[in-house]
C-alpha cells in the first residue's frame, strides 16, 4: 500500500529538494528502487481488492464493498479538495443525487443500469456547474464552502420533503440489481463488490490522469496561488469549476452503485455529516496524494470495525486518533510517506 504516492506534480514547492545540492554517491540505486514503490503500491491495492474474494465470509465481502465505496468517494473528493484546493462541502449531496437519480431512472422509467449511470452523472455535472460557478468566482474558499454547504442541506431537505418522488424522510427501497457488465454478473454480493471496486478504480484512474496532465498541474498552481496562476495564463475560475464538476460527477457515479448495494436510500445520505467525515478521511490519509484517500478510508472505517468490542468508545478512540494525527502529522499518512520516500531517494534517510 505504501506508495501509489510518488507524485511529482503535487509535491509542494517547499520540499527540501534543491537545498541539499547534488545527490550523494550511491544514490542511483535508491532512485531506481524508489521508482518501483508506486508499482508496489498498485500491487498492494490489487491484493487488497482480491482478498475479500478469497474467504467465503459474507461479512468480509460486505465490509470490502463499503470500504471500496467510501474510498472511491474520498478519491473523487480529493480532486477538488486536494488538487484544486477548494473546500467543497456538497460531496454527499451529489453522492445522494446519484443514488436517487439512478434509482428513479431505473425503477420509474425502466432504464438499463448502465444507461442510468451516465445520465445521473450528466445531471450532477450540470448541477455542479450551476452551483459552482457563482461560488468559485471569488478567491479564498469560504464562499464555496458555505454555498456548497447550503446547497447540500437544501438538497437534503428537498429529498426529505418531496414525498411523491423520493418517499420523504423514511427513504425508499430499491429493488433492482445492476445488469451484467460485458458478461460480468453483478447481482450477487461478490458482483456488487466488484461494482464498488470498479468505481474505486475509475476514480483512481481519473485522478491519475488529471495529476499527469497539464490540467492537473494547472490545478496545483491554482491551489498554491490563484493570483500567480492567473498571471501564468491559467483560466483560474474555469479550472476550479472544472475540478468541482468532475469531482461531483464522480460522486454521483459512486452514488449510482450505492443504491443497489444498500437496497435502501434515505435523505440521511445527503447530510453534511457524510461530507465532514469524508474530509476527515482525506486529511487523515494525506490530501492531494493518490494513496491518501485509500489509506484514510482504511484507517477511518477499518479501525471502528476492529474496535467493535469497545462498542460505544470506538468512535471516541477514532476521534482521539484524528486529533493526534492532525497535531503531529499535519500532512496526513500519505504526505508523510511521500516525504519519507523523497528523502530516502536522495540518500538522506
Amino acid at each position: 500500500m505504501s506508495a501509489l504516492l510518488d507524485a511529482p506534480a503535487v509535491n509542494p514547492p517547499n520540499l527540501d529538494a534543491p537545498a541539499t545540492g547534488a545527490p550523494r554517491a550511491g544514490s542511483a540505486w535508491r532512485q531506481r528502487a524508489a521508482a518501483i514503490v508506486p508499482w508496489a503500491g498498485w500491487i498492494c491495492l490489487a491484493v487488497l481488492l482480491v482478498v475479500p474474494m478469497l474467504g467465503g465470509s459474507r461479512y468480509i465481502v460486505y465490509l470490502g464493498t463499503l470500504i471500496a465505496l467510501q474510498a472511491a468517494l474520498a478519491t473523487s473528493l480529493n480532486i477538488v479538495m486536494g488538487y484544486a484546493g477548494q473546500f467543497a462541502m456538497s460531496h454527499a449531496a451529489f453522492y445522494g443525487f446519484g443514488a436517487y437519480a439512478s434509482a428513479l431512472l431505473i425503477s420509474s422509467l425502466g432504464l438499463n443500469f448502465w444507461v442510468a449511470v451516465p445520465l445521473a452523472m450528466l445531471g450532477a455535472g450540470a448541477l455542479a456547474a450551476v452551483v459552482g460557478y457563482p461560488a468559485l468566482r471569488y478567491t479564498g474558499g469560504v464562499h464555496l464552502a458555505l454555498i456548497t454547504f447550503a446547497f447540500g442541506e437544501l438538497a437534503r431537505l428537498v429529498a426529505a420533503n418531496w414525498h411523491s418522488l423520493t418517499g420523504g424522510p423514511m427513504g425508499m427501497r430499491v429493488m433492482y440489481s445492476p445488469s451484467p457488465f460485458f458478461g460480468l454478473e453483478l447481482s450477487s454480493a461478490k458482483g456488487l463488490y466488484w461494482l464498488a471496486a470498479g468505481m474505486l478504480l475509475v476514480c483512481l484512474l481519473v485522478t491519475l490522469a488529471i495529476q499527469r496532465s497539464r490540467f492537473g498541474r494547472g490545478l496545483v498552481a491554482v491551489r498554491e496561488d490563484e493570483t500567480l496562476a492567473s498571471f501564468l495564463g491559467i483560466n483560474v475560475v474555469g479550472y476550479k469549476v472544472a475540478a468541482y464538476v468532475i469531482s461531483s460527477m464522480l460522486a454521483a457515479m459512486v452514488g449510482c452503485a450505492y443504491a443497489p448495494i444498500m437496497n435502501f436510500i434515505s435523505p440521511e445520505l445527503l447530510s453534511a455529516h457524510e461530507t465532514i467525515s469524508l474530509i476527515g478521511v482525506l486529511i487523515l490519509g494525506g490530501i492531494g496524494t493518490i494513496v491518501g484517500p485509500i489509506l484514510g478510508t482504511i484507517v477511518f472505517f477499518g479501525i471502528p470495525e476492529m474496535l467493535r468490542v469497545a462498542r460505544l468508545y470506538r468512535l471516541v478512540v477514532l476521534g482521539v486518533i484524528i486529533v493526534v494525527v492532525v497535531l503531529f502529522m499535519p500532512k496526513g499518512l500519505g504526505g508523510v510517506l511521500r516525504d519519507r520516500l523523497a528523502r530516502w531517494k536522495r540518500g538522506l534517510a
Partner: protein
Amino acid sequence: MDLIQTLLDGLMVGGLYATVAIGITLVFGIMGILNFAHGQMLMLGAYTAFFVVSAGFGFWPALVIAMVAMAALGLLLERIVFRHTLTDHMQGLTASLGLIMVIENLAAAAFTPDHRTFEPPLAGSFQLGPLTLSSQRMLVLALVVVLVVACYLFLQKTRIGKAIRAMGQNRTGAALVGIQTSQVTAVVFMLGSAMAGAAGVLYGSLFAITPYMAAAPLMKGFILTVLGGLGSVPGAVLAGFLLGVAESLGSRYLSASFRDGYGFILMIVCLLYFPRGLFGQRGKIRV
C-alpha cells in the same frame, strides 16, 4: 396580529442564533480558528445547566456555572489543541472534527441519548394587548440582548477588547506593538466558549437537550458569521435576527417542514449579491 406574533417568535429564535454566532465570530472571524466543536460546547453547556438545575440550585447559578465551565474547557482545548493549528484552517477544522467525535460520543455514553428538559425560571405566558407572549421566551430574548451588548462593549471599550480587535486586523502587527498574542488568543477562545455555554443554557430552557443537539445551531452560527461579514459582531447579531425572522415567517406562511431551508436560501442569495457579508470590509476579492 398574527404577523407580529410571528415576528416576535422569529426575533427570539434569532437571538439564540445570534448568541451562537457571536462565539463563532470571535473564534473563527477574528482568530481564524475553524472550531466545529463549538456546537459541542453548547451541548455541554446545556447539560451543565440541566444537572445544576436538577440539583436544586436554580436557573441563574446554572447560567453562571455553565459559562464558567465552558470557558475552562475552552481554555483547555486552546492550550492542548488549537494553539498548535493556528496557521492552518484545514488542520484546525480536522482537529475539531475529531473533538466532535470524542465529546459527542462520551456525552452519549455518560448522559444517555434520552431527551432531557429542565424547569425554566419563568413558566406560563402573559398578555400584552392582543398578543400572547411566553414569559420564558421573552426572558431569553432579554438575556440575549444583555449578552450581546455586554460582549460588544467588552470588545469596544476594554483594553483587552481593543487588543482582540487589533489581532483580528493584523496578527503580526498586534504582536509588534506589544500585544501578548498567545494570551489574547486564549482569552478569545474562553470568551467564545462561554458564549457557547450561555447559548446552550438558553437553548436548554426552551428545547429538549440531547447529546446530538449541536449540529443545527453550529451550522447556523457559521452561516451567520459569514453573512454578517467575517469578524463583525454587529453583523453577526443582525444576521442572526434576520435569519430567525426569515425562518419564522417562512414556516408560518409557506411550509414548516422546510424551516431550515429558508436560512440556506437567504444565505445563498446574500453571498451572491453581498459576497463580503452585511458589515464586511469592501475590497477586491476576484482574481
